[in-house]
């Protein structure tokens, strides 16, 4: 049998508009998670958001996805004048595959939920791209963790939205699978505007064009670190390791630990 798996290709419809978030504020129970928060997402850029647990990274992501209810304010404007709502795809840490649907049916979920006819050819192409052609008829319970997250990635790509919001999508995977999926995501999402929340500074530097640290209470964004070169980057590169040390410092790691990473980079 010949391997018919197509090579992953960049997203077919690159995103053409910038997103500007101004004076974002979210409060839970009267306590501000963040306020006066500004963030720009240039068209087609890959932005990563780092920060300690509970600082509000996911909340910021969910704010952009219009999933936060309650005490919320702020302006999201797109440079093409069209509202952001309805133009995002969302991928979470859990695969969120429906256990009663096969991989293919899960990939086609969006169309079913909108009452549209699913594009089977497109689904099959994307399933092949993420390397699940032989598993398209299986149910999630029959898949490994890595395969499930691949299926979730295919479902995200199937939506073909200009903006992709990802909430620690690779954090539950083993290191090898994580690297593979990062590589795949970097390829297939090229050209889309992506915001990725992660715990892992190396993941952020590997994939991001802009890497922000969110910290403090109420949380505020640090100036972006901008790794050079094309993603997915080589994480053994000296510049990347130096930037990792800087990120660890921003994240509040103690100075000697950050210095040790920095020294290794020399």
């Amino acid at each position, binding site marked *: 049998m010949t391997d018919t798996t197509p090579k992953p290709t960049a997203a077919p419809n690159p995103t053409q508009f910038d997103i500007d978030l101004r004076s974002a504020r979210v409060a839970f129970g009267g306590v501000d998670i963040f306020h006066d928060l500004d963030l720009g997402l240039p068209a087609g850029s890959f932005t990563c958001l780092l920060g300690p647990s509970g600082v509000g990274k996911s909340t910021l992501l969910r704010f952009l996805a219009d999933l936060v209810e309650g005490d919320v304010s702020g302006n999201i404007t797109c440079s093409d004048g069209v509202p952001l709502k309805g133009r995002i795809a*969302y991928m*979470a840490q859990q695969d969120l595959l*429906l256990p009663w649907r096969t991989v293919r049916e899960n990939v086609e979920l969006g169309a079913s*939920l*909108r009452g549209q006819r699913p594009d089977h050819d497109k689904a099959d192409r994307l399933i092949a791209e993420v390397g699940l052609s032989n598993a398209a008829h299986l149910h999630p319970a029959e898949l490994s963790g890595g395969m499930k997250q691949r299926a979730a990635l295919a479902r995200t790509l199937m939506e073909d939205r200009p903006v992709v919001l990802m909430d620690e999508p690779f954090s539950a995977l083993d290191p090898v699978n994580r690297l593979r999926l990062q590589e795949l995501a970097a390829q297939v999402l090229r050209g889309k505007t992506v915001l990725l929340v992660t715990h892992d500074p190396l993941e952020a530097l590997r994939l991001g064009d802009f890497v922000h640290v969110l910290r403090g209470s109420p949380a505020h964004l640090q100036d972006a670190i901008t790794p050079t070169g094309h993603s997915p980057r080589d994480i053994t590169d000296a510049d990347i390791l130096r930037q990792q040390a800087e990120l660890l410092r921003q994240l509040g790691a103690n100075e000697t630990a950050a210095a040790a990473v920095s020294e290794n980079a020399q």
Partner: protein
Amino acid sequence: MSTPAKRTPLSERRLLKIARPIIIIVALIATWQLTVTLTGAPKYMLPTPVDVWHTLITRYAVLFDHARYTIAETVIGLFAGATLGALAAIPMALFTPVRFWLMPILLVSQAIPFFALAPLLVLWLGFGLASKIAMAALIIFFPVTVAFFDGLARTEPGWLDLARTMGASRWRLLTHIRLPAALPAFASGFRVATAVAPIGAVIGEWVGSSHGLGYLMLHANARVQIDMVFACLLILCAFSITQYFIVDRVLRAALPWQPDSLTPVR
């Protein structure tokens, strides 16, 4: 090189699985026989297993004729009660005001001893099947409603977020995600209902009827035909167990993703 066949712990367990119900039944019959022998109880107080077996064989036609009614009442009552339960649970899960109005009524209804309602049902619905079906349906309505409502109210929040970003309508969210996700919970309620439905039918028959195993038991009891009472009880037991296993098998086959059917049964 092949090793001589040994009894592995697994095959022993499998053997035990088949042997266990047989051992239990034999032990129960032996205890029964022993009780009769030791106490010297007369046949009109406690017949021996052999007496009851004899009655089962000789009065087969009468027993079968009455069993048909009880089985019909139970099965129809089961489906009527489950349908009504499902129909009550869905609007309660979908519309908060409905929940606020209906839940107290449901809870209060549980304070009514259903056995005390049986005479009224017979008065209103007559001596025929209807009053027994109503009794069985009433008894199972609550467990089904509560279990299904609980399942509908506990949809995985991540699925709801995903559906929202995909632009799902309220109706499609219900039919494609919330309903299928709640089916395992509905199945638990239905299993409980299967076990209690025959009780409803028999109580109904006791209060007023011209057919059914409950009717037959009551009359046999009055004529001190205790062997007949036991024969009725045995048939009821056999029917309840069979019905439960059929329902359990069907539910497992229909909902292969539900957690408890993912663990292999040994």
